């Protein structure tokens, strides 16, 4: 109210021109309307529904009563959820660390290959697994690590008896982590390669004139120039630490369940398969909060926003 009373002539004019602007752009608002409705319905609504369900009873039909934090308490008391936290953290942190380091080393080594054809060939080949669905990766690894597969054959040369890799608890986590590396380092290396190729050649020239050898060029020119890319990759990877799902869903079986069942697998099995919407949503909300915290920790640790 106060605003209108105090408004001066110029403000009235501005308001009129705003109205005029809006009127002129009517068609754009009309075009945006279906998008806005879509996003409210398919993005915002499921999010808030999930949040609301986490405070309600596990009931399929009829009105669900408000239960406060009961679902959160029961989810945290559920041994399956606790195991899932442990597995997700172990697999997630190993993945985070190994993806980051191995793809960086890979990109730096690849960058030293002088023949353009060879370099691009390797890069293309290494990217291919990133195209595959986790089921395809699962199939490839199932063949490799089959009782009669290549890996067991190699072990046979050293006199070892065949190992049932896919059904052995002690190999479950290394296999999942290995699959992730096999699939993803080509992709992250590509991000580094793109960043390396955009480094100003004059910087290399300057370092050369100063007598820097190739090794010190890598350490003093390439690595510092890659810092922004590293930060981005760290934050991208951090967001994924707690949200492993597809690969777990593909590879989980009764023998390795205790080692690899993840948080999102818990949410899926509790919510979609067992219809305990309240418990599952509470779990999902906790994962979301966890992800926010983890991402924020890495953001501030890398000074991402500065």
């Amino acid at each position, binding site marked *: 109210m106060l605003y209108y009373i105090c408004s001066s002539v110029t403000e009235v004019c501005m308001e009129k021109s705003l109205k005029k602007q809006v009127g002129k752009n009517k068609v754009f608002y009309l075009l945006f309307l279906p998008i806005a409705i879509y996003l409210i319905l398919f993005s915002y609504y499921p999010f808030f529904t999930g949040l609301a369900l986490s405070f309600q009873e596990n009931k399929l039909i009829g009105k669900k009563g408000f239960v406060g934090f009961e679902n959160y308490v029961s989810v945290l008391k559920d041994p399956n959820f606790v195991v899932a936290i442990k597995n997700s953290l172990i697999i997630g942190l190993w993945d985070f660390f190994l993806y980051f380091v191995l793809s960086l080393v890979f990109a730096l080594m690849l960058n030293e290959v002088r023949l353009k054809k060879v370099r691009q060939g390797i890069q293309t080949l290494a990217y291919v697994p990133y195209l595959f669905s986790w089921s395809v990766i699962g199939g490839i690894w199932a063949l490799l690590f089959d009782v*009669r597969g290549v890996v067991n054959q190699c072990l046979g040369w050293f006199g070892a008896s065949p190992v049932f890799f896919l059904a052995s608890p002690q190999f479950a986590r290394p296999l999942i982590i290995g699959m992730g590396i096999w699939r993803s380092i080509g992709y992250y290396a590509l991000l580094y390669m793109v960043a390396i190729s955009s480094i100003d050649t004059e910087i290399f020239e300057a370092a050369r004139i100063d007598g820097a050898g190739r090794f010190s060029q890598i350490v003093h020119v390439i690595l510092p120039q890659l810092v922004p890319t590293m930060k981005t990759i760290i934050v991208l990877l951090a967001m994924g630490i707690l949200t492993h799902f597809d690969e777990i869903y593909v590879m989980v079986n009764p023998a390795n369940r205790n080692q690899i069942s993840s948080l999102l697998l818990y949410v899926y099995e509790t919510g979609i398969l067992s219809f305990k919407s309240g418990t599952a949503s509470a779990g999902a909300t906790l994962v979301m909060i966890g992800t926010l915290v983890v991402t924020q920790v890495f953001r501030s640790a890398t000074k991402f926003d500065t």
Partner: protein
Amino acid sequence: MEKQTRLKKQDLLPLWLRIIGMVLLAFIVVVTGIPMLNVLSVSLSTAANSDSPGLILFPSPLTFEGYSFIWKFTNLKQPFFNTVFVAVVGTLLHVFFSSLAGYVLAQDHLPFKKTMVSFVMLTMMIPSQLSMIGIYVLNKQLHLLNTYQGLIINGMVTGFSVFLMKNYFEGIPRSLAESARLEGASEFTIFNKIYMRLSLSGFMTIGTLEFIRKWNDITMTITLISDMKKWTLPVVLRWLLFDQAETSGTSYVYQNAKMAAVVITSVPLIVLYFFTQNFFKEGALVGSVKG
């Protein structure tokens, strides 16, 4: 920048480091290439050969019986065409609506643009995997469970694609649209005739990325589809590989047929990749900048 002619000793790593590097790269090539070749060869082997121990890199005799078995006998046809349908239609709609939104947000002098931008940006902060339960409930209310429409509609507009297209459109000179406007062209004609034509590579980028996402999707499919007949390839493939023996028990699927299914699921993407390689780089670049 190739500088082979001016290559001096100064520009080479010490020998021992170069050797380590080459060994490492060779290792990566072998470890990436051999498993893929292995899968391909097993898929082309006879059933008996494919189940015998050892590494098969060249099938002898070469046969397509694994393919015909998996295609007809276990009816992989059905999920294959399900996936093609969902991915193609889903991608077309995705490209259309995401670029439409990107086009609106690329307009300057649009009042409330900041609000609209953050409205879209906020949806990127919501990880779709985590609203799984909410998505299930919504699709149940809309009667989209166990339908292809459900798979197509969910994910039709994503913040990532909207902003990628917004950037593309902003790169097109304003003067083009202005002069068309002066000649009395409607906004839709301007969008259609100028912006669509000049942003083809943008469409290709979000199109290929979305096609791959839809083709490979597991999470959304198992959330929305419980009817096995409507499953998509990756979900059926998982079942064939790991569950089939326990749940059906009627027939044994040999290794060659399983690997044929792996090849069928992955080859369309490899073909697509070789035709659209440059757009991947572009998409990867934008994706990493957006963070």
